[in-house]
């Protein structure tokens, strides 16, 4: 799997530069390992991060995902059902006007997409959303 195929194309919001760094492709890091590394020992809570994703993907190859975590210094996106769950991490500098980002990701199958946000005080929160990848065709 090539990193470029993950479509980790970040659309900057608010006009403030931030970095979207594809995670190092140390193959097959699990969601648990990635979460532990990101949290750095903090207990992962909920609330404070909003993940917006379609319930059913119109095209599993390019699924629009938005994350918003006011006050975050970094947000990590994981696709739990992909062969390589790591998608990308958005880092927000002190001058960032908002801590939100939109991107499109490729999903191999129906799975939970997870967003983890690290706040300035080091606390970590997460949100997840099930995105269904379907063969479709029989609605009406």
């Amino acid at each position: 799997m090539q990193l470029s195929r993950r479509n980790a194309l970040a659309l900057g919001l608010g006009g403030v530069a931030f970095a979207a760094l594809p995670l190092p492709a140390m193959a097959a890091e699990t969601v648990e390992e990635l979460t532990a590394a990101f949290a750095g020992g903090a207990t992962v809570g909920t609330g404070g991060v909003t993940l917006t994703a379609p319930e059913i993907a119109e095209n599993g190859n390019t699924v629009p995902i938005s994350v918003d975590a006011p006050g975050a210094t970094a947000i990590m996106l994981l696709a739990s059902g992909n062969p390589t769950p790591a998608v990308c991490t958005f880092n927000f500098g002190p001058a960032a006007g908002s801590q939100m980002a939109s991107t499109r990701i490729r999903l191999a199958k129906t799975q939970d997409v997870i967003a983890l946000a690290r706040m300035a005080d080091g606390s970590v929160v997460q949100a997840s959303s099930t995105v269904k990848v379907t063969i479709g065709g029989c609605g009406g």
Partner: protein
Amino acid sequence: MISRRDFLQATVAASALWGASGVGNWSRLAAQQALTQDKLLEFDDYGNVTLIHITDIHAQMKPIWFREPEINLGVGAVNGQPPHVTGADFLKMFNIESGTPEAYALTYPDFEALARAYGRMGGLDRCATVIKAIRAARPDALLLDGGDTWQGSLTAQKTAGQDMVNVMNALKPDAMTSHWEFTLGIDRVTEIVEGLDFPFLGANIFDAEWNEPAYEPYKMFEVGGANVAVIGQAFPYLPIANPKWMFPNLSFGVREERMAEVVQEVRDNGADLVVVLSHNGFDVDRKMAGNVPGIDVILTGHTHDALPEPVMVGQTLLIASGSNGKFISRVDLDVQNGRMMGFKHKLIPIFSDVIEPDAEVAALIDAEREPFKAELEEVLGTTDSLLYRRGNFNGTWDDLICNALIDEHQADIALSPGFRWGPSLLPGDNITREDLHNATAMSYPAAYRSEMTGETLHTILEDVADNLFNPDPYYQQGGDMVRVGGMGYHIDVSKPQGSRITNMTMLKTGEAVDPAKSYVVAGWASVNEGTEGPAIWDLVEAWIRKQGAVTIDPNTSVQVTGA
């Protein structure tokens, strides 16, 4: 001859609005009354705002038979809740006596006998009479069309929806939303929409590339001294349930956060009443009503449910107005100081033998049909069986189509999509070309023949079953289960995706379907571009002509548990 009965209106005093259960008293006060046009239209004007809702007409300009579903399961929290109530349970829930016109209009039992007694329903010329009568009482009433209007008949197919556009224009809608409209192709939709005198609303339709709104989200109307915002919500799963290549640059989705934003926007702009004209499907609307604050009324569509009383979610009214022109809902509202203070609602059944056709619209319908008259009226055969489609698992119309697919394509297994449109025919009726097209007319009709392994077939059934039985409504697409010929199966609707479907069996031999073996499969309405095969209506017409008289055996090939 029509028996002398009437539907009574559900009147709820303003003081009883909040907390009303929404069910149980529809016909409690029903006395034996004459089934007359005056009685069907009787309505003491209430409040200051009137909404008229019609939806899912599926291009049915003339009166039709339409048998309501026998099986319409709800999973999870909505099990046993309207609209997942059918037959005797439905009659009991709404206090309707069996054998009455209400029972005929709203449920399936004794359908054939009651159909013969009470006649066909619908007809846009009759709908025009009702709409004009309401407007005579309430000149600023809003007529709102929930979509699935331009598809579903031979004439709509041949004119790319123009016949329906012309007839609907004569009814003067104030707004519409959409679903099957887009299967005419984006260029045709754009051409029609540019010529409409009313907005084509869709708050959840976005440009797929830039993720920006692609259609007007709402329209504000001044009605009875109140600002009424009508927000459109198109079918969320168009690019999944229908061919995406026909409208490649559009994205849909439930987009709950978008709906919340638009509701806030219209409130900020001074809306006293917020109405969502929706093609979400009933369960999706019910969830949305609970999650998005500030919506007063959702005019539901897509799932073809007809409910004689509103369902209330918190302080939001959900109105379900049926399909195929069978019903029109009138909703009168008292809107004061930015609040809905009370409502009065009536689901008006369009008994075609009782309601006088509007002469102007009747003439327009005839003019639209005239060029196709001989084609429409040609008799292909007769049916000895009741032909209907609606229901979660199978219907005799699809059994007929599956039989034709298996014979004409020499297939082991046939698949027919679980569409909810398609009127019924009574035993002894001729099957005309119009009737066949009413059950099949659409823009991707190729009847394919291909090979699939047992494993692939299982995956398809599981996928479609999850579209119908996922306990979270936002993951439901609103069709019925794909209909299968030549193969039986067992489904436990309570299980998760991947483990609902078991015991797939070839009906002819009684052998279990082998996951590794290839089977010849015939089907139609594939969403894939470039699907090859004759149009389904040509294939079925050839088959019906060979049969002469069609008989459909009772179908017990699907065993259902977990409901």
